[in-house]
C-alpha cells in the first residue's frame, strides 16, 4: 500500500466530511471557471464582432465608443447623422459624378474625387442609416454592398449567406425600393419569413410606425454577430419613409421638385414597379448615421483615421480598439472583482479542509501512533495527512472544473444564440491551467497545521495500551 492509497482510505473513512469539504472546494473552483469562461465568452463575442471585415467606423463627432456600440453592435441610443456629402468624400470622382447625376445634387461635387477616396482604393465605404426599429430589433438602412463586401467568422472569410432568399436589391420590379433582409434571430423571434411585410417604427421600439412597408426577401444564416439581431432595409426605401428626409433650406431645393412624393398606384400590388414611381431623395436631403470603412490596406487605416478626426464634422473609430478599451475599463475590472470573490470562496473551502482534517486529528492520533509502531516515520505520517488534503484539492478541482464545463456545455446553445460564440465542454480559457496549481497550493497551506500536529504525535501515549 502506498501513501496515496492510505490517504484515500482515510478520505473514504470520513466520507461525509471528505465529500462535503471536496464539494465546497469544487463549488469554489466551479465559480472561478465560470467567471473565467463567461469573461472569455464576453470578450470573444465583443472583439470578434468588433470587425466584420471593416477596420473603421465613421460617424458624427462625439463618443467613439457610442459610435461603435451603435453602428457595430446596434446597441445604445441613436446618434446624430452625417450629411451625405461626407459619405461622398470616401468615393472616387466617377462614383460621385454618378451619384450626383442620379440623385440630383450640387454640380460642384462632381469636380473632384472624395478627400479620403485615395485611402479606400479597393476597399469600401458602406453607409448605414439607423434609428428605426422592427419590434425590439434595430432596422439598418444600407446598400446591397453590405452583403457583398462584409465577411464574418473566426478568420473573417465567410460571406453572409441566406438560409432562405437573397440579399435585397436597390430596386426590384416586385417590391420597388422596399426590400428587406432580416437576421436569423429577428426571423425567429418576430416569426417572419420571405414575403412578409413589416413597418419600421420610428425612434424607439414602441414608437409610431411608418406607413411604408418593407418586404422580406431574405433571411440570413446565423453569423454569431450582431447582424443576427438586425433587420436590414434598402437605404433608398429607408429615405422614402416619412421624416427620413432632411428638411431643406431654400437654397438647397432641387430643380425637379414638381414630381409628387409617391405615385398613387404604388399600392396596387400586382403592378410592375418602375424606378420613377417614387421621387428619390436629393443628395442634400440625404443623411447617413455612419459608414463602415475598409481601407485598401490596413496600414492606411491610422492615417485615414487621423485625417477624418482632424475634420470638424466626422470622427473615425477603430471598433476593435474601442471594444478593447471598454473591456479594459469596465468588463476587465468587473471580471477581476468576480475573480477575487470566487477565489475567496476557494480560500474558505481550503479553510474547510483545514478544519475537517484538524478536527479529526484526535481520532487520527491513535492511527498515526499505530503506523509509527509499524515502522512509519514521522515524515511518512505527515505526508499521509498532506496527501489527504491534496486528494480533496485535486478531486475538488476536477469536479468543479467538470461541473462548470458541463454547465457551459449545457448552455452552449443559448450562449451561441446570444453571442455567436461557440463553446463546448472542452472549451477552456488560458487562465484555467492556473486553477489546479493554485488549489493545490491552498490545500498544502491548509494541510500545514494538521500535518505539523501529525508530525508531533507522540507514539507511546497514543497506543492506548
Amino acid at each position: 500500500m502506498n501513501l496515496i492509497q492510505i490517504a484515500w482510505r482515510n478520505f473514504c473513512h470520513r466520507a461525509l466530511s471528505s465529500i462535503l469539504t471536496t464539494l465546497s472546494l469544487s463549488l469554489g473552483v466551479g465559480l472561478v471557471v465560470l467567471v473565467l469562461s463567461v469573461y472569455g465568452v464576453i470578450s470573444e463575442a465583443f472583439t470578434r464582432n468588433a470587425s466584420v471585415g471593416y477596420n473603421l467606423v465613421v460617424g458624427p463627432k462625439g463618443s467613439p465608443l457610442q459610435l461603435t456600440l451603435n453602428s457595430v453592435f446596434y446597441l445604445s441610443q441613436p446618434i446624430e447623422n452625417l450629411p451625405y456629402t461626407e459619405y461622398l468624400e470616401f468615393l472616387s470622382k466617377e462614383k460621385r459624378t454618378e451619384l450626383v447625376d442620379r440623385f440630383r445634387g450640387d454640380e460642384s461635387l462632381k469636380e473632384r474625387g472624395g478627400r479620403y477616396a485615395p485611402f479606400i482604393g479597393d476597399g469600401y465605404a458602406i453607409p448605414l442609416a439607423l434609428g428605426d426599429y422592427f419590434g425590439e430589433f434595430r432596422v439598418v438602412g444600407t446598400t446591397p454592398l453590405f452583403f457583398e463586401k462584409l465577411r464574418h467568422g473566426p478568420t473573417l472569410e465567410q460571406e453572409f449567406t441566406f438560409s432562405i432568399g437573397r440579399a435585397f436589391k436597390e430596386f426590384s420590379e416586385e417590391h420597388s425600393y422596399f426590400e428587406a433582409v432580416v437576421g436569423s434571430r429577428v426571423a425567429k423571434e418576430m416569426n417572419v419569413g420571405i414575403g412578409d411585410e413589416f413597418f419600421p417604427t420610428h425612434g424607439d421600439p414602441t414608437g409610431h410606425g411608418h406607413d411604408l412597408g418593407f418586404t422580406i426577401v431574405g433571411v440570413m444564416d446565423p453569423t454569431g454577430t450582431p447582424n443576427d439581431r438586425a433587420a436590414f432595409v434598402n437605404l433608398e426605401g429607408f429615405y422614402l419613409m416619412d421624416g427620413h428626409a432632411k428638411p431643406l433650406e431654400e437654397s438647397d431645393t432641387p430643380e425637379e421638385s414638381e414630381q409628387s412624393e409617391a405615385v398613387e398606384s404604388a399600392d396596387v400590388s400586382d403592378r410592375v414597379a418602375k424606378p420613377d414611381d417614387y421621387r428619390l431623395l436629393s443628395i442634400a436631403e440625404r443623411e447617413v448615421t455612419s459608414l463602415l470603412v475598409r481601407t485598401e490596406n490596413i496600414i492606411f487605416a491610422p492615417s485615414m483615421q487621423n485625417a477624418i478626426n482632424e475634420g470638424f464634422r466626422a470622427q473615425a473609430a477603430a471598433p476593435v480598439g474601442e471594444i478593447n478599451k471598454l473591456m479594459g475599463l469596465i468588463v476587465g475590472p468587473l471580471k477581476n472583482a468576480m475573480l477575487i470573490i470566487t477565489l475567496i470562496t476557494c480560500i474558505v473551502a481550503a479553510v474547510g479542509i483545514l478544519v475537517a482534517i484538524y478536527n479529526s486529528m484526535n481520532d487520527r492520533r491513535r492511527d498515526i501512533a499505530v503506523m509509527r509502531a509499524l515502522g512509519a516515520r514521522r515524515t511518512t505520517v505527515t505526508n499521509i495527512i498532506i496527501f489527504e488534503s491534496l486528494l480533496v484539492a485535486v478531486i475538488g478541482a476536477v469536479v468543479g472544473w467538470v461541473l462548470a464545463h458541463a454547465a457551459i456545455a449545457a448552455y452552449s446553445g443559448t450562449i451561441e444564440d446570444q453571442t455567436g460564440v461557440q463553446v463546448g465542454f472542452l472549451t477552456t480559457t488560458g487562465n484555467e491551467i492556473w486553477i489546479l496549481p493554485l488549489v493545490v497550493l491552498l490545500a498544502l497551506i491548509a494541510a500545514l497545521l494538521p500535518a505539523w500536529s501529525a508530525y508531533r504525535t507522540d507514539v507511546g501515549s497514543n497506543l492506548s495500551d
Partner: protein
Amino acid sequence: MTKTLEITDVTKSFPQPAGGSIQVLDIPKLVVNEGEQVALIGQSGGGKTTLLHLIAGLLSADGGSISVDGINLTKLSEQGRDRFRAHSIGYVFQTFNLLPAFTALENVRLGMTFGAGKADNQRARELLNRVGLSERENYRPGQLSVGQQQRVAIARAMAAKPRLLLADEPTANIDPKSAESVLDLIGESCRNENIALLMVTHDMQIASRFGRTDRLDEINLVVSKT
C-alpha cells in the same frame, strides 16, 4: 546461541506532572535468545508496556543499551529506529490497534508497508489464511469479533518477518476460550517463522504456558527496591 534481544543496564524515568521525575525501569540484564519464547509477568503499573516501547524503539532509554539482532538501537537516530522497527519488530497490542479505515487484508499489508516497501499481497493472504480469516479479508475491523481482530493483528505483526515479536497482554480483552487459541496462534506462528517472542502479562495462568517465565519485579531493580 544467538541473542535476539539483549538489554543491559537500561534505565527509564518519566517526568511527573507535579514536577520532578519518577523512575520506572532499571534493568541490569535481560536476554531473549533466537526463537525463544518468554513470558514476562508483572503487576499493573510495573513498567511492562514501557519496557516493550523501549525495545521497539518507540521510547528512548535514559541509559544502558538495547540490542536486537546485534543492532544497538540506543545508538540509532530516530529515523534509524523507525527503519529498525519496520524490519525487525512485530508488535501485538492489548487493544489490537487495527486501523478502522482498512480491511483485514489491508491491515496486514500495512505491516509491511513501512519497511522495504514490498507490499506482498500473496504473503498477506497467506498470513490471514494461517490465522483462519481468509474468508474475512475484506472485512473492516468493526465487522470482526475481538478474537478475530486480534488474529488480524497477529498476522499484521508477522507480516514484515520480524526477528522479535513483542506482545503486550494480547489476550486481556478476549474471552478465555478465544484467548487460548490466540496464544496458541502466537506461539505457533513464532515457532514457524523462527521469531523470538517476548510477551508481557499480569496473568499467571498465561505465563505458565511458557517454557520460560521471568518476573519483572525480579529483573527490575526499581520494583524490587519499593
